Structures are given as structure tokens and as C-alpha cells.
């Protein structure tokens, strides 16, 4: 089955990104497919390559990048939301791409389920 995922909050401030990541890992472990993870609202802040969390904490951005590298998951950052919040190609972490909101609607159409994580 194909899952679409929407993440509406940035890393650390809210649990949304953590929950979405653990859900994605479980989706793959169950043998399902992830159609796309779309980052909207403050969710775009999950894609900055400049984060440097404390050594004893999880690295949320790096985890997403690794998910893309290991499983080819499509990580899409909304361009309009990203411009508002200062996410551009120059600070984008590996594995993410910036594109339009149409990619979210398309994921809603093409995936069998769309699961939303937010505040």
C-alpha cells in the first residue's frame, strides 16, 4: 500500500516530526511504500542542513536525510512556505527537494492513504 505523509511543524519544538519519522520507519518495516513526505507550514524547517543538536539528542534533520538515502523516500518541501521561513537550496539538507503545493495534492490523489502530523 502507498502512504503519503504530511508534516506541519518544525523539528524539536513539536513532536509532529518525530511521530512522522517513526511512522515512516514502521511503514517501510511493514513492507509498504512511502509515496512522498511533504513538509508544509513550519514543517519546512525540518530540511535545514544547518541544525546541530546536542550530542545526546536525536538529529531530526539527519534522520530524514538518511531515510531518503537508504530507502529513496521522496522528501518535498513546499516552496512558498519555505521562502517565508528562510529555507532555500543553499541551506537545504541532502535528500530534500523544494517544490510546489501541487505535490501535496498529488500525493493525496496517488497515495492510498494520507497521514497528517502537526500541532
Amino acid at each position, binding site marked *: 500500500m502507498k502512504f503519503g505523509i504530511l508534516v506541519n511543524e518544525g523539528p524539536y519544538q513539536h513532536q*509532529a516530526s518525530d511521530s512522522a519519522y517513526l511512522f515512516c520507519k514502521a511503514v517501510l518495516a511493514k513492507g509498504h511504500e512511502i509515496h512522498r513526505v511533504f513538509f508544509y507550514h513550519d514543517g519546512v524547517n525540518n530540511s535545514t542542513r544547518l541544525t546541530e543538536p546536542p550530542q545526546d539528542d536525536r538529529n531530526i534533520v539527519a534522520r530524514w536525510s538518511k531515510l531518503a538515502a537508504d530507502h529513496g523516500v521522496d522528501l518535498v518541501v513546499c516552496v512558498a512556505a519555505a521562502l517565508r521561513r528562510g529555507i532555500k537550496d543553499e541551506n537545504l539538507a541532502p535528500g530534500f527537494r523544494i517544490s510546489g503545493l501541487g505535490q501535496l495534492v498529488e500525493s493525496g490523489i496517488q497515495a492510498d*492513504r494520507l497521514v497528517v502530523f502537526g500541532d
Partner: protein
Amino acid sequence: MLHIVNKSPQERPSLDACLRIAESGSILLIEDAVYAAVKGSASAGKLAEAAKKHRIYVLLPDVEARAIADRLVDGVTGIDYGGFVDLVADHRACQSWL
């Protein structure tokens, strides 16, 4: 329909809205919404009532982080992230009450 609630019942009206509007389907409590299932809390009666109409699930990793595994009301089913995936797959659609 699978209804996903992620907010504490004493902090936000999202569980109330879900229970008022959702006619049928299952309810999954994640993140701070797991507090809704605490025995002896202000929301315990509400949840017991809801369990008559809906199947109610709680996400165990969130329950354990919040140290309430030993005080959940009867009639709620604990699941892990794999179970969360199965629940989404088993329902035709899902809705997050953000």
C-alpha cells in the same frame, strides 16, 4: 474512518470536537492525547462513554514516555508504531484532529 487525536484533552478541544462530530470509526490517541486515557482524570468518563461507539487505541511509545502505562482506563487497546500503520491501512481513510 480512523480518527487520530494528538492533543491533551485538558489543553485543547480536539478530542471533544472528534467525539462530538465523529459518528463512527476508530479513534487513535497519540502524543499528548494519550493523557485522555488516564484513570481518575477529568477525561476518563468521557473516554469510557466514547468506547461504547468507537474502538479506542493508544500509542504505547507515547504512553510509556509519559509514564501512564499502569493507569489506563479499561477498554482501550495499546499498539506500537507497526500497529499504527496497520490501523491506517485497515481503515478506508484517516483524519488527524490537529
